[in-house]
């Protein structure tokens, strides 16, 4: 078992990346902090030996992904809406979970359009987009982290980019162009 000093060093080195990945998947800073805590607790309890820093980094991201998937699966099973005591009506709607996070949390002002669109992507595409374009991992590294094939990584990326192109194109359409598109259908 690792000691607390080892965990402190690991948090300094990898804490931000784990938190960012959890934010991208869960679209909530509070949930992402919980996910980060769970991940490092798992590291503390793990008896695994890591051959390098990058090995540890991949392992932490894989654990984060699994925890986030479990959390989202549990949330989906909840029969009622989540209660947020700070909300005006006492209810926080899961469908609008992402938008306050994007506006309030991202430090750099300006165009948040891509974050909004990425948040609408399916989870499996979103995780690949985050690892590729925020964490700058190569497709081969993403394969190792997510435990999927290279073809699968490229396929998910390709589909995600296609969806993003479509969403951006639709957002920049004039009302007349929208009418024309709907008429063509």
């Amino acid at each position: 078992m690792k000691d607390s000093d080892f965990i402190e060093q690991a948090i300094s080195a990898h804490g931000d990346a784990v938190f960012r990945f959890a934010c991208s998947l869960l679209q909530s800073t509070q949930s992402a902090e919980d996910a980060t805590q769970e991940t490092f607790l798992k590291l503390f309890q793990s008896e695994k030996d890591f051959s390098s820093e990058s090995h540890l980094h991949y392992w932490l991201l894989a654990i984060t992904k699994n925890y986030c998937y479990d959390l989202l699966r549990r949330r989906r099973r909840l029969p009622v809406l989540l209660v947020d005591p700070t909300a005006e009506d006492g209810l926080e709607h899961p469908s609008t979970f992402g938008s306050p996070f994007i506006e309030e949390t991202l430090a750099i002002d300006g165009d948040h359009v891509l974050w909004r669109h990425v948040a609408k992507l399916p989870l499996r595409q979103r995780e690949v987009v985050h690892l590729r374009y925020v964490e700058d991992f190569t497709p081969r590294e993403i394969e190792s982290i997510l435990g999927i094939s290279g073809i699968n990584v490229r396929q998910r990326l390709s589909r995600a980019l296609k969806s993003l192109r479509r969403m951006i194109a639709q957002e920049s359409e004039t009302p007349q162009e929208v009418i024309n598109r709907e008429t063509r259908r």
Partner: protein
Amino acid sequence: MKPVDNNRFEVYRRQGRSLHLSANARHRILEAVRSCETSKAGASPSEPHRRRKATSPRTHLSSAFALKAACLLIIISVGLNTIFAILPSRNLETPQAIATSPLRPYERIEVHYLDSSIVATSQEALCVVPVTLYVSDLSSSQVTINLQGSNGVYLISSGSLPTETTPHKTTLRVACTILGQIHLQLLCPTSITREQFDEGSRSTNSPNWTSTEPVKLIERLRGSQLTIKEDGGDQATFRIELDDFPTLEAIAAQLRRGNDYIPPYFSLDRKDSL
């Protein structure tokens, strides 16, 4: 891979990178780790490491997994059912096709009435009627058939015609198909003279004996017994069931009931099986 827009992705990357784990969160995580460390050390310092039990065991299978498992179970069940229900019957060569025929009795003699003929030798005119026996539980490819109490009806191989030298046999060795079908011909002398036969052959109208002579042949089989003996020694004896057809007219009506697709038939009544 071509990005959507390099500038947009650069902004996206910088915005993503601006997310940092807060100092409070770091502190909280370390506190949690330290409390774990303390509780572990206090609990059993000399105890060797044990595999940690799951704190929240899964009580429900995920729906996707359950669906896959159910599909797999159904496929395996259907496969096993197919293997154990069909293959043994194929291996034992049990004539399931006959058994499952819903409109006909299990064991029967089909009379190919429309293919019956009158054949003349120098001595006599003979009526030849092709028949097919359907018998269950035969495992040999060759069987020996014996006709007892036949009242002048004899057996001849399927496809052959009687000649001057053809002996009148009541015992015949024939082939049996995997479905328990035995093809052969029944033969009996008629009252037709050679002159009548020649006259009938020259006539443009079909002589009426081709319809009446097979009826008489079947009537001769009343009370006869058919024994089928396999090479392995097993044998079965049948009686041709004519109780429902007491007169020649009734037999004729039954024979005319058939057509090209469904030949007329009479039941075989199994007497014993050794």
